[in-house]
């Protein structure tokens, strides 16, 4: 599996070149959000707001009203928690094209509870006019920029930074409202988003070795939610639907899938894996994923148990499973 280092840095610079309406607003986390080089490349289009997020939301709204496309770059928690009233009233209500790029989604950071955005999707899903995109690999970090151009309104992005896997081929970019079917199987349907997808890809490889064939769907548009591909995927397998997300199980992907299943009367059990209505704490990503049951190992055993199969699979065995770049299944053909 190819690893890519800080794909957002140069990609965003290149993408912004012929888009003079694109501005960056930062609240003192410029290098942390991989836009330091962007600032140095386009100093006239970079606006330092200082550590003052409530004001930054209003400034972004004013700039957007005047025809600019402000790209707020900060940690996700400082977008939806601290200045929520400003986000809702100054940006979301008037449906302004402000792009809110939220770094450190879920429990990817040792920054602890103050830096871990674990209920952002729930809050943003409940916000009218909001579109929510989540990146799961380098290809999605690169292509999410183009996706925003189809949205005439505010967009919230769960963004990844640093060294990232390339799970999806470059020639298969993120598309608005379109999921990716990564594997097709008859026993269980797994739906994941963000970094949970890599874990699930590892899990489905191991499950397959033990004769459990999963259908696996990766979702990158969390709102609006309703890709018909998901209904097809659920119909194809006989077992339950299992969701795994880097977020609390209340209000995020698991809830969106549950609502989808209920709204369409699909009559299928939905098992929501993720943070179980709890805050986390500061530690390494791998430690936290294990501690809170968000990793491939937890997924393998939960599915085995749900299907009445107590699997003798060790953590080492799961960790050893390589993740192959997912070019095998073309979503459009299914």
């Amino acid at each position, binding site marked *: 599996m190819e690893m890519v280092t800080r794909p957002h840095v140069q990609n965003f610079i290149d993408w912004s070149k012929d888009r003079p309406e694109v501005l960056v607003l930062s609240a003192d986390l410029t290098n942390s959000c991989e836009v330091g080089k962007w600032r140095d490349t386009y100093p*006239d289009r970079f*606006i330092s*707001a*200082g550590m*003052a997020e*409530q*004001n*930054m*939301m*209003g*400034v*972004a*709204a*004013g*700039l*957007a*009203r*005047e*025809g*600019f496309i*402000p790209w707020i770059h900060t940690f996700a928690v400082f977008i939806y928690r601290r200045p929520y*009233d*400003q986000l809702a*009233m*100054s940006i979301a*209500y*008037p*449906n302004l094209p402000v792009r809110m790029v939220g770094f450190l989604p879920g429990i990817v950071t040792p920054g602890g509870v103050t830096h871990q955005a674990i209920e952002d999707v729930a809050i943003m899903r409940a916000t*009218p*006019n909001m579109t929510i995109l989540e990146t799961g690999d380098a290809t999605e970090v690169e292509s999410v920029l183009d996706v925003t151009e189809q949205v*005439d*309104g505010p967009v919230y992005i769960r963004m990844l930074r640093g060294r990232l896997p390339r799970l999806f081929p470059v020639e298969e970019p993120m598309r608005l409202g379109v999921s990716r079917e990564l594997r097709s199987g008859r026993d269980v349907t797994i739906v994941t988003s963000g970094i949970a997808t890599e874990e699930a890809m590892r899990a489905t490889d191991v499950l397959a070795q033990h004769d459990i064939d999963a259908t696996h769907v990766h979702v990158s548009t969390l709102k609006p939610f309703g890709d018909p591909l998901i209904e097809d995927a659920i119909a194809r397998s006989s077992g339950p639907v299992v969701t795994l997300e880097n977020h609390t199980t209340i209000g995020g992907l698991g809830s969106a899938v549950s609502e989808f299943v209920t709204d369409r009367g699909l009559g299928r059990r939905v098992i929501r894996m993720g943070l179980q209505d709890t805050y986390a704490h500061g530690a390494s990503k791998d430690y936290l994923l294990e501690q809170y049951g968000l990793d491939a190992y937890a997924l393998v055993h939960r599915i085995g148990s749900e299907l009445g199969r107590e699997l003798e699979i060790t953590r080492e065995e799961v960790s050893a499973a390589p993740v192959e770049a997912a070019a095998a299944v073309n979503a459009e053909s299914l």
Partner: protein
Amino acid sequence: MTISEEDVARIAHGIRTRVFEHVLRNGEGYLSQALSSAEIFALLYGGVLRLGPVDGSTTPAPFVGVPGRENPDYRSGDRFNGAPAPDRDRLIFSPAHYALVLYTALIEVGRLDSDALAAFNQDGSSLEMIGAEHSPGVATTTGSLAQALSQAAGIALARRMRGETGNTWVMMSDGEFQEGQTWEALSFASFHGLDRLRAVVDANGQQCDGRMCDVGEIEPLAERVTAFGWDAREVDGHDIDAMHTAMTAASDRPVLVIARTNPTQGVKVYEEKAPLLHTLRFASDEEKSRFEAAYREMTEAR
């Protein structure tokens, strides 16, 4: 720019009497805000603001839905302030509960139909009690107080990036200086040198719970704002000539005009209700009749 003190005084008198009449007819309402800010609105709409003519009809449309993908024809109430132009001014109206004063000011200067207040706070009307983005004269959503100054700073920054020469104005209430966001916005505007951003605050010293000095002191406001890098100008908010000078004199910094005003200006009987002046409600028919007498006295004064 020419401005007639007499015209401004006439507009201010019209705002006070029209709002007073409405509150008496309605049985309650936001009167103190009109009494304190009448000259501010009269100056803004009576010549200080360089605005184009109303963009469209002076008749307000009914409520036509909130902004969103499903409502592409949505328009804010900013059209009553005229179409934007590089050399024109903008007005961002912040204290949304002053809506009745704003609508009345628009009526007094002919930007809104004279019978428009009949729809005030009526179901399905765009003349909402707390001014909404679709309400006449309103450009942004500011009912959650202290959000306008930041939005105006964004607009002023965008206009500077485009080389526009018009000012971006904000009409504020003093209670908003209790909110932290206001101070974030003040810092931002001075740090970014937004010298075409101007705000005027109706410093009437009143808020819901009573006198601001008893609820949450913000003084010394001029010193505080000056320390934040603004050009603060403290002035008698009922002195038209002094206000005009304070609002229009040039500056190389963002300007805050602190209009010191009286929330019972012109209605002496209202002083009896202090310190609770936020909304006028009558305790008895006898009390209401004394306010009616004050209204007759005011209308006969000119």
